[in-house]
């Protein structure tokens, strides 16, 4: 190997490929497009039902705003903890990064529990109206999205525990946060379009 003279400037480091981040952005965009299509059908059906002079939510169903609002605030709080995790890992503070990820995961679980509880309370029978079909499809799909987000977060937390992420490599946490923000965004739209507007 040839000698390198003293004082030779080092070559600029190659930019990291950010493969996981790009892949996650692709998946997140696909998930958002999926929900955009569902909301398109939902809002169109709702508009038609109301224009005909009928009610959108079938008689006998009681959709309270309390549980969805609690869930929405929980989701919004998880944005703070998620960003806390990204902030911490970028500063080599693994303890806080894992703590913040654990809190985000806890918030996610609590939204699953809140939504499940609401299912038992609202008296909406799935095969009796178009509204019920669409509400269960959208909120059920969102539960699946939360589940994917939780698995993603737990995976990143375990990899951080193993020392894989640091200020030099934050892609996993940034990618998980991008997906999680999309989870929160979709819930805010659900809260507005389904539970507030009814």
């Amino acid at each position, binding site marked *: *190997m040839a*000698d*390198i*003279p*003293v004082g030779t400037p080092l070559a600029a480091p*190659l*930019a990291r*490929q*950010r*493969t996981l981040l*790009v*892949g996650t952005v*692709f*998946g997140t*965009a*696909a*998930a958002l*497009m*999926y*929900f*955009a*299509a*569902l909301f*398109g*059908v939902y809002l*169109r059906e709702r*508009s*038609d039902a109301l*224009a*005909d002079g009928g009610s959108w939510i079938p008689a006998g169903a009681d959709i309270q705003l309390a549980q969805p609002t609690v869930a929405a605030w929980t989701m919004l709080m998880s944005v703070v903890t998620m960003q806390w995790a990204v902030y911490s890992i970028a500063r080599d503070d693994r303890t806080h990064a894992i703590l913040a990820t654990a809190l985000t995961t806890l918030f996610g679980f609590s939204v699953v529990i809140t939504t499940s509880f609401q299912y038992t309370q609202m008296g909406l029978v*799935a*095969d*009796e*109206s*178009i509204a*019920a*079909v*669409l509400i*269960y*499809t959208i909120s*059920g*799909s969102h539960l699946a999205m939360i589940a994917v987000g939780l698995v993603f977060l737990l995976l990143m937390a375990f990899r951080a525990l*193993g*020392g*894989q992420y*640091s200020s*030099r*490599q934050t892609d996993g946490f940034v990618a998980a946060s991008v997906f999680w923000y999309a989870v929160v965004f979709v819930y805010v739209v659900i809260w507005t379009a389904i539970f507030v507007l009814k």
Partner: protein
Amino acid sequence: MTLTETRPEPDAIATGDDFGPTAPSSPHQWTPPTGLAGILSTGDHQVVGRLYVLFALLLSGLALVLGVLIGIERADIDGGFGLFGQANELFQIFGLYRTTLILCGLVPLFLGLATAVIPRQLGASSVAFPRAAAAAFWTWLVGAITHIAATFSYGGLGSLQAGAAREQSVELTVLSLGMIGLGLLAGAGVIFATIVTQRPAGMDLLQVPAFSWSMLVATGVWLFSLPVLLANLVVSWVDMRGADAQGFGGGDAPFEQVAWAFDAPQVYAWTIPMLGIVAEVFTSAHRSRPQMFEPMAFIVGVFGFFSFGAWAQSFFDSANPLASDAHIVTNEVVFTAFGLAIAVVVLAYGGWLAFNAVSAGQRPRITPQFALIAISGALLTAAAVVGVLRVAEPALGVLREFDEDVWRGFFDAMDDLESSSLVTGVMNFAVLGGLLAAVGGLYHWAPRLLGRPLNVPLGFLSVLPLAGGAILIGLTDVLSGLFDQPARPYETSGIADIDSLGFVEALNVIGLIGSIAVLGGLALVALNVARSLTLPVEAEADRGGDA
């Protein structure tokens, strides 16, 4: 200070994440499994690409067999359902023809070529997520096999028999189509991430080869289309799980929900990669490099934009008369604009090819792949031009919102085109054009993909039935559409409106001959691939192709 020590060999460095901790190397050499276990567990992009191509060709063949069966049925339009017995069974095969041809044939064929070729085009060692690529392939394949099996088990995308007990196989058909969509979406994500992240330093996106660029555009458009298809299927499936379907899962609604994927403009979106294949084979045949690459990249991007068609579905249309007028006008203006724009973009692409032919200053080298891409370009042009007729009825509809009698009489013939077999003609022209381009790409990259070139005389022999058959299929669909043959052969109510029934039946027989010819051509391609696999693998330096 001088650096004189020799760096450790890469084998001595622990594998794993580049930024993670290192671990001592294992004293035992791991050997990858071989045989069937090797194929099932492989993450090698070349092997996954070959598997995609192999199964996509097989399933394209199956789709063409279904096309032949539908052709036999249409050869005697007013004779009842002689071959299928019932309208519902024809409806099942009609839907399966579309899903198999596009989502089990054309799209995975492009993905297979991309998985095998694009890393080499970019100078990368593999695709971005090799295991995800393998998982996407197996998801797609299992979904495709389940979808076909479920349809043949009296499934299909819905049922025409009102009040009949719903077959569980209908649910399985819908679910498996979702699985196909999920697999294709994951495969598209892998290709997208590969092109974005695996380029060498200094190569920007406008410096990637034409096929890579077209795949970047295609996967971008599929990213916005396939999730909508999945949403349609999930709503249908949830609805049909209940005791009484509320509108999304009942009757033939599941098919109606996904019909936009087989109609203009979305049908063009499935063919976007053909623009890259045509560009590469065309310039290679002229022994030149692509001139004016940026305008071509722009044209492909614009083609991608105007081919996005997930919005053009009736489930986004309002049934409310107060809201629908304005909405339908807007919808149809956009629909018409997209149809016209596609034709302009395809002509612009033809202009780019002509410019490159003139710039090269020499005659092209005539090869099977050149003949195939020339015909595929002609088929896409035909699809785009006929697509203008396809949007004539919506355009007239918009004009008649303002004046009931505008062009009444002269353009009356356009009134029923939207529901005629002209729509099928647009689909067949575009999709078969894409299929021919993909086969052209297979010939072009065979030395890289298979390690051996394909036989040239056998290649020329396959061009004739493929090209002739594809033209016959598309042309007879368009012509019979002008005579008001309904797009959906199971709808008997439209038979009375057909002008010159005998002539239309004769056209259908010619179309049937075309289907058999394409099937024969595809069999010759499969024979050629099988024959090449018996030859010894060429040395890397001897391989042709431009990958």
